[in-house]
């Protein structure tokens, strides 16, 4: 007979509820179970209407982000045994509107992501028979930021985003920086206006929680501080250098 643990789950049905409430469930506690296993157990054995997102179960898709005891976590990578005495409180990710139970609306993030142009921008494409050669050292420049899986745990951890939803936010800036640092990219100037806007990098007050909760060790806080330095240098160049030089990427 396995030990058991109490899971408190936030529930919200937009058709019926005015605000979220908590439901408690007693589930088996197996050493190899993650929080997502407990949620699937609840769905299979207690309440089939419990709604949550998940897909890969291996920390790659970034779908199963939730608040576990108040901390943003990927539930597929968070072991129940770490909370052994229980209860474990599962809530939808903070700072996003709740659609139902543990599912949040991340449209704001997706729209900001699209605006930051997270793709390789070229002034002119090379002919198809030519390669874009990149050395391991050049890859290393941006590799850390390319690990982002868009799980938006960093947005749930960032109090600045919670207080001001205009703030571009950690993952979008980290992903823009990923392309800015890519030796094949020529779009840094196009992203500069978006990122150096007041609600962009300057909105960040360096709380640092985004880096703490990132399951892929992307370090969005580092990306933002580095880009602040870049933007300040660009501003200085724009003030000091003649117009022709300013237009250089």
């Amino acid at each position, binding site marked *: 007979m396995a030990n058991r643990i109490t899971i408190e789950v936030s529930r*919200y049905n*937009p*058709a019926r*509820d005015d*605000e*979220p409430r908590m439901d408690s469930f007693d589930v088996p506690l197996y050493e190899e179970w993650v929080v997502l296993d407990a949620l699937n157990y609840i769905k299979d054995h207690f309440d089939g209407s419990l709604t949550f997102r998940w897909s890969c179960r291996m920390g790659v898709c970034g779908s199963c982000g939730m608040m576990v005891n*108040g901390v943003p976590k990927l539930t597929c990578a968070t072991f129940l045994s770490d909370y052994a005495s229980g209860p474990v409180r599962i809530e939808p990710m*903070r*700072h996003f*509107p*709740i*659609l*139902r139970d543990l599912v949040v*609306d991340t*449209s704001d993030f*997706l*729209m900001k992501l*699209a605006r930051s142009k997270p793709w390789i921008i070229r002034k002119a494409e090379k002919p198809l028979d030519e390669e874009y050669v990149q050395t*391991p*050292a050049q890859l*290393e*420049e941006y590799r850390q930021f390319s690990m982002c899986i868009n799980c938006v745990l960093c947005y749930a951890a960032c*109090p600045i985003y*919670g*207080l001001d939803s205009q703030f571009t936010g950690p993952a979008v800036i980290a992903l823009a920086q990923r392309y800015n640092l890519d030796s094949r990219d020529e779009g840094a100037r196009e992203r500069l206006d978006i990122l150096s806007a007041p609600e962009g990098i300057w909105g960040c*007050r*360096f*709380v*640092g*929680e985004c880096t*703490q909760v990132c399951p892929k060790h992307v*370090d969005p*806080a*580092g990306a933002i*501080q*580095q880009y*602040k*330095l870049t933007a300040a240098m660009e501003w200085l160049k724009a003030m000091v250098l003649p117009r022709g030089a300013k237009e250089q990427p």
Partner: protein
Amino acid sequence: MTNPTEYLPRSYHRRVSTFWWLARWSYLKFILREASSVFVGWTVVLTLVQIWAVTHRPSANETFHEWMRHPLMVGVNIIAFLFVLFHAVTWFSLTPKAMAIRVQGRRVPDWAISGPSYAGWVMVSLGIAWVVLRG
């Protein structure tokens, strides 16, 4: 781009608690760091007033020192000193985050960037202490 939210059913928007900054130590540390700017400003103003007092008539300097000896000022300045220290330490710990320097393909470790900052801080402080305390 069309806002996809408008096609979704009713959603619940949560308000951030007024006391959100008490929820985690890292949040409280952040608020204390932000608040430390007030004490940095206070210290700058106090230093400017002190310089003005020293460079003007001796009575102004005497009055300033009298003022600074008041228990309330001593208390405020001890708190200000602690906050300025906190501000400086958090500033130096930020430096390696902002400066991703690579040497021979490897990122320079954090201590190699913050270390010289602390060393410079100590040197400047010792220099100022020498100027002030020598007589």
